[in-house]
């Protein structure tokens, strides 16, 4: 069979987001991959320069529908650092609660999508049902299911009343039980194992070289977690473990995410039980002094970086956002070459791509210099060579 170009996206059932892969396949084997993510550029970074801090926060909430709290927290804590403001402990812990619930709903979503990508729709339905519990909790805590509107510069906008704390705590235990069940299911269901194990494998060296972040990196034994390495909003005082796995394939990424789900339950429970009294927000000055801050945040998908420059005004001079999906793309484009057509959806999904965040500003493209440094198999080398010729990278 001659080479066939299979267009995947921008409208395709595998990826409900605007991205276009041109997959060149020889029969069932992927020869190369061309990516185009530029369907969703919204100029948010430019828009942020024209608004004051108060109005930037809702704007950033809309960078991404799933990690909306991540972007606002990264921004708020950056601005607070520039202003020299400290958020009261209660406000910090409420941010942590929302952040970890967000991580849980994002990972549950991912688990379902991964199941869907391999045609395991029952897993998809089940995890999404349990995700509803998380979303209900978020709705009760913040008033919204997505785009929580919880963050403000200087703290959070809503306090949590004791009855609500009790209600949330009550919901956590069944949820934890369900998550353990999924962990069991994924480890033992034969088709899941067949489709996840050994697929999209990255060694530790590759994971480091391609700059992967988050669960993708941690599944390859790269022990980076911003929550522990560069603690923010109270993570320094919260007991939790960084989950890593040595397998480096989609299965490893699944195990890492499930492990993180359990850790998130633990963090949320700890934070709810140890909420200190006091205010949730402090008043902040309108403007920020001249400063530049690199605000790092462990979003569900990995390290999120906001580079913020302030300049004695109430607007940012520059807000440069580097999303985790962007950092992970390089590894996807490289690791897919030579694998099976059927593996595209699950490998792409394994980094949990969030294209809305990413094409806010950017795109892609894969492995440079790697041919000389690493010994890939023939096909992979061929693919990279191709990129060199075709894309010139």
């Amino acid at each position, binding site marked *: 069979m001659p080479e066939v170009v299979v267009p995947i996206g921008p409208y395709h059932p595998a990826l409900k987001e605007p991205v276009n892969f041109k997959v060149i396949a020889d029969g069932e084997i992927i020869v190369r991959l061309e990516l185009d993510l530029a369907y969703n550029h919204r100029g948010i970074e430019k828009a942020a320069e024209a608004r004051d801090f108060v109005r930037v926060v809702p704007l950033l909430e809309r960078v991404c529908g799933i990690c909306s709290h991540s972007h606002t927290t990264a921004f708020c804590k950056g601005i607070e650092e520039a202003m020299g403001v400290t958020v009261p402990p209660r406000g910090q812990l409420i941010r942590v609660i929302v952040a970890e619930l967000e991580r849980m709903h994002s990972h549950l979503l991912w688990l379902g999508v991964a199941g869907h990508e391999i045609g395991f729709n029952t897993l998809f339905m089940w995890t999404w049902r349990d995700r509803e519990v998380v979303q209900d909790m978020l709705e009760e805590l913040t008033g919204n299911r997505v785009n929580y509107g919880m963050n403000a510069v200087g703290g959070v906008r809503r306090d949590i009343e004791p009855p609500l704390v009790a209600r949330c705590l009550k919901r956590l235990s069944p949820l934890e039980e369900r998550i353990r069940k999924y962990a069991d299911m994924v480890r033992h269901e034969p088709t899941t194992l067949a489709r996840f194990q050994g697929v999209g494998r990255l060694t530790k060296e590759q994971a480091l070289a391609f700059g992967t972040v988050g669960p993708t990196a941690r599944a390859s034994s790269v022990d980076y977690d911003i929550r522990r390495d560069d603690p923010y909003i109270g993570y320094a005082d919260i007991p939790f473990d960084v989950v890593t796995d040595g397998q480096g394939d989609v299965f490893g990424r699944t195990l890492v995410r499930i492990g993180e789900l359990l850790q998130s339950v633990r963090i949320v429970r700890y934070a709810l039980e140890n909420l200190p009294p006091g205010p949730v927000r402090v008043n902040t000055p309108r403007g920020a002094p001249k400063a530049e801050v690199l605000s790092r945040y462990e979003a569900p998908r990995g390290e999120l970086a906001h580079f913020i420059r302030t300049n004695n005004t109430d607007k940012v001079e*520059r807000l440069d956002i580097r999303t985790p999906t962007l950092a992970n793309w390089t590894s996807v484009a490289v690791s897919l070459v030579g694998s099976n057509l059927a593996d595209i959806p699950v490998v792409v999904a394994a980094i949990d791509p969030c294209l809305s965040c990413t094409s806010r500003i950017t795109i*892609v*493209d894969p492995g440079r210099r790697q041919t000389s440094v690493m010994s890939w198999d023939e096909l992979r080398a061929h693919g990279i060579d191709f990129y060199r010729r075709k894309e010139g990278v």
Partner: protein
Amino acid sequence: MTNASPLAAEDVMKAMEGLGSVDRARTNRLRVIVSPERVREAILRAQGSLGCDHVIQIGIVDNGRVFELHYHLTGPHRTVVTIKTELPRDDARIASSHDLLPPAGIYERQIHDLFGIVFEGHPNLQRLILTEDWPEDEYPLRKDWTMRPDRRYGGSTPEGT
């Protein structure tokens, strides 16, 4: 914790000796300011003697006078080492670091698309996120950029027609 203790400012000073001044924003943020032509050397030294193995971001700021590039690197010491350099507005070009830092290739393309900075030696500085019909010589994230009424941006004019 798996790793070494945070970097001290002295370590960075020693590693970056002769390249530029080092300052510290807070505990784990160290910054070295170098001239554009020595950025690659600074990255090599950071990777070598400082053990940096992860590029967080290449931050770019247009401060109205010059373009600032911030290469944020980190490593097992979990300290962010920022290599900062300034490029003149009228001739913004710098050597590409895509061969030293693989992910930087993406970030450089993005910066080129939005700011028009030329990364010399980058094999493929093509349009990346802006639409194909975006005017060639316009870079929307520059401070002095304004839409021109006679041009079309992403299929429409500034008036929306």
